[in-house]
């Protein structure tokens, strides 16, 4: 029996309303206090193509994606084959038995449960639209019975969603829920051996996606100017920002906005708007994805060389070019680190989940303004668009934004003359001024050659003097980015370095390996340029694996360049098919390269959604 430790997948057609039904399932399980994760695997299309929703529950809190499932709800005939294939031996398959069971679905080693969802809903409801929608709620009801989800909680959630305003809709939902629930109860012996049981209510946990979290971070950082051009999977970040601002940023007296969101005509323009606004003194940002960063490259170089703060959220998607816009990857590390022509280098932040997405968003503005340079928050589709169970965000009311060196009118009054690029304090950072403040503050911001006085130059020495300072300045950011997180295991000689959304899968892999006698240490880097502790971690381990989600081991490349170790001395585990990293992938990647007597046996044993931890 598997209690609170299994995974299931729901296969539907996109644009049929299954998304909200699946969200309902997720949230209900979450309210039961059970650690849960949901991965939405959807097409780059609006209606009619296959889409999947994968839910994993694990009482220990291991909620990384698993590639195998104990139960599948197969609502989409066009994907029957692969849906059946991904089912674990002994698993359960639920299909719509309104029609006779198709050959594709029969597999000897699984249990197939037919539920006439369409049939029952066609009887119970009027109109094709409602019938289609309610079919989704009906399978939610069936699942409630089969895996023992608290029906009361689901009804409570529907109540909260539709409230009294949409009474009729609420009733339909209740009925559909019951239809599925009752049919399952009466036809199968519920609950199945894979089932849920309430756990302690998780008061300090929330369920939220990374784009919403990052948007909230922008609000708390005091960002007032948002510019963007829509692109999957970053779009919901700006939607959320606008939403929060409507709530928190209205002038109580006039009802006017204390923010502005400009939908630019393209990404080049969005970058220009952010740079223009930051230059003028507002905290400004743009959410985008890979193609957007490519288009912003020229402007990024300007911000780097003219030293204008700017915050870019790159919610990464799969592949070069248009690639697979609705799949996840960590493929823009190199691009963002060295974006634009000439010698450049940019600070990067790597959140691992929505919780960090919130906090790093806030940090990004401080770093960008303190160091007067573009900063990239590298999120991805998995973090940005999927709901994650994370701790509540905290805010310290004492926290003030670090605006960096910005001379006030008073300060300008006192100094004899202002020079934009003069390193007065010897910390590689020159003070800047804002337009409209003081006649003495005036300078000409330019991407063409300039000397430390801020004047145009074509002189070698004057040019070198400025770019050498820039190099030192960016290097000094290493101590300002979030420090790496380290987890050690006694007797570990193997080190693992990873990044961002791989975290859950790596932690699970580490524990899995530890339980089997292979202890490893783990460092998750959270910012670039890397602090010295990264070099030390590498030096301290005989074998170091770098786990990441791209083809060319881009994190490994950055590690080798920054720490000076030979790139080949770091072993690489890369997964880049567009789906979130799994424990299986990490363990496979490690064992395949490991000289260890048990490696082979363990490899064979590494599968399944379960994750027992010996007590």
């Amino acid at each position: 029996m598997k209690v609170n430790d299994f995974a299931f997948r729901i296969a539907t057609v996109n644009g049929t309303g299954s998304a909200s039904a699946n969200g309902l399932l997720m949230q209900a399980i979450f309210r039961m206090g059970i650690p849960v994760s949901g991965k939405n695997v959807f097409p780059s299309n609006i209606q009619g193509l296959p889409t999947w929703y994968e839910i994993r529950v694990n009482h220990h809190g291991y909620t990384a994606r698993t590639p195998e499932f104990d139960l599948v709800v197969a609502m989409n005939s066009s994907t029957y084959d692969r849906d059946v294939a991904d089912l674990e031996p002994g698993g359960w398959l639920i299909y719509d038995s309104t029609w006779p069971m198709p050959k594709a679905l029969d597999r000897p080693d699984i249990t197939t449960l037919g539920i006439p969802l369409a049939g029952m809903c066609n009887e119970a409801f009027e109109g094709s639209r409602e019938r289609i929608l309610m079919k989704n709620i009906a399978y939610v009801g069936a699942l409630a019975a089969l895996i023992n989800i608290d029906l009361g909680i689901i009804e409570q959630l529907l109540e909260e969603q539709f409230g009294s305003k949409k009474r009729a809709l609420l009733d339909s939902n209740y009925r559909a829920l019951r239809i599925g629930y009752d049919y399952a109860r009466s036809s199968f012996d519920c609950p199945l051996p894979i089932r849920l049981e309430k756990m302690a209510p998780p008061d300090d946990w929330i369920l939220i996606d990374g784009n919403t979290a990052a948007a909230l971070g922008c609000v708390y950082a005091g960002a007032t100017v948002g510019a963007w051009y829509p692109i999957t999977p970053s779009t919901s970040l700006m939607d959320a920002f606008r939403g929060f601002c409507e709530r928190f940023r209205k002038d109580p007296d006039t009802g006017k906005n204390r923010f502005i969101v400009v939908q630019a005509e393209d990404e080049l323009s969005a970058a220009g708007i952010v740079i223009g606004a930051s230059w003028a003194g507002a905290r400004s940002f743009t959410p985008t994805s890979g193609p957007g960063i490519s288009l912003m490259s020229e402007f990024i170089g300007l911000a780097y060389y003219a030293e204008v703060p700017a915050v870019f959220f790159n919610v990464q998607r799969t592949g070069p070019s248009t690639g697979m816009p609705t799949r996840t990857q960590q493929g823009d590390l190199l691009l963002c680190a060295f974006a634009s022509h000439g010698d450049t280098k940019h600070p990067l932040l790597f959140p691992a989940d929505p919780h960090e997405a919130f906090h790093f968003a806030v940090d990004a503005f401080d770093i960008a303004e303190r160091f007067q340079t573009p900063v990239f928050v590298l999120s991805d589709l998995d973090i940005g668009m999927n709901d994650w169970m994370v701790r509540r965000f905290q805010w310290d009311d004492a926290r003030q934004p670090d605006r960096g060196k910005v001379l006030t009118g008073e300060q300008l009054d006192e100094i004899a003359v202002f020079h934009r690029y003069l390193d007065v304090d010897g910390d590689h950072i020159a003070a800047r001024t804002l337009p409209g403040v003081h006649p003495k503050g005036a300078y000409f911001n330019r991407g063409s050659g300039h000397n430390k006085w801020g004047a145009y130059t074509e002189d070698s020495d004057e040019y070198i003097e400025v770019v050498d300072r820039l190099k030192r300045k960016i290097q000094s950011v290493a101590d300002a980015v979030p420090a790496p997180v380290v987890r050690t295991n006694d007797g570990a000689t193997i080190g693992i370095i990873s990044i961002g959304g791989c975290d859950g899968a790596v932690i699970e892999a580490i524990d899995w390996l530890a339980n089997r006698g292979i202890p490893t240490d783990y460092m998750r880097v959270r910012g670039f340029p890397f602090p010295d502790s990264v070099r030390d971690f590498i030096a301290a381990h005989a074998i170091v694996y770098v786990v990441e989600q791209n083809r060319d081991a881009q994190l490994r490349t950055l590690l080798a360049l920054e720490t000076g170790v030979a790139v080949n001395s770091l072993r690489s585990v890369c997964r880049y098919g567009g789906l979130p990293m799994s424990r299986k992938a990490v363990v496979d990647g490690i064992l395949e390269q490991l000289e260890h007597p048990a490696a082979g046996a363990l490899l064979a044993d590494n599968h399944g959604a379960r994750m027992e931890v010996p007590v």
Partner: protein
Amino acid sequence: MTTSIVKPRVRHPGLPVNAIGLTRRDYEGSMSTLCAGCGHDSITGAIIRAFFELDIPPHKVAKLSGIGCSSKTPTYFLREAHGFNAVHGRMPSIGTGASAARRDLVYIGVSGDGDSLSIGLGQFCHVIRRNVQMLYILENNGVYGLTKGQFSASADIGSKPKRGAPNRQAPIDPVLLALTLGATFIARSFSGDKEQLVPIIKAGLRHRGFAFIDVISPCVTFNDHEGSTKSYSFTRNHMREVVHADFVQPQTEISVSYAPGDSTAVTMHDGSTVTLHKIDNDYDPTDRDAAYAYIRARQNADEVTTGLLYLGKGAPEMHDTENTVDTPLAELPFDQLCPGSIALGQLMDRYR
């Protein structure tokens, strides 16, 4: 070597001062490094005069430009104003962002025909559509000056280059474009005609919303020869002023007056007045479509229509559309921006 030669700033006691006690010199910038005789330098002169006469404090101005000889000119005026030399063709987005952050400043953007009509055409059209509060001056010479004289998108059919074949592609006329895209202040002038240009610049600086001036500005080095339609002589011989604008400060009495019917006085949002004196009575500078038709007709007759060609009812500028607070966003105190810990706690409850 530093090539922006800083002029010595000596106060000449004799020089006339404006309402805020500044002399014309205080509105100058560093010495021009353009070719002797370049039209752009004359426009710089007109800009300096306009700001001086409008008594605008230089440090309350933001000067923006792209890349090109024309885009270098902001260094040559308003020494005490912040300047932003963007990348090629992208000045409009910089202006949009700056204006979004600080709506209290006076924005002037200077660009070229290559900068605005080739690489920057998309941004140019969209800053018009967004109606960002700024005066946009296009110094139009029909060529890429800084890269040594290739034809730009404003080159007229049949215009001859110094070497090679005449241009055969239809020109992009920024004035017709602006009319089509809904701009509410549209003018065309000539670098060689300060009397016409200065009042238009002043009016443009006072216009609410996006103001556009296309200024024919001959490139003496690459496009001022016989056969060029953007040369001094061609422009002088083919330009036809249809409306002459007089600009009058709020305080002052409207001195000028014309025979009724010939002129209309338009009051700008700051109370100042623009008197549009019609030189051609058939021309109505307040009728967008009539203006378009008229300009096209003159074009077919090889004439370049100049003057303040269209002045429309103020459409909502970006901040009106977006309903932003009057205080510049960049000046809002943090406590008005950060909702704080209690609000966060309440918000977190909604994600359970």
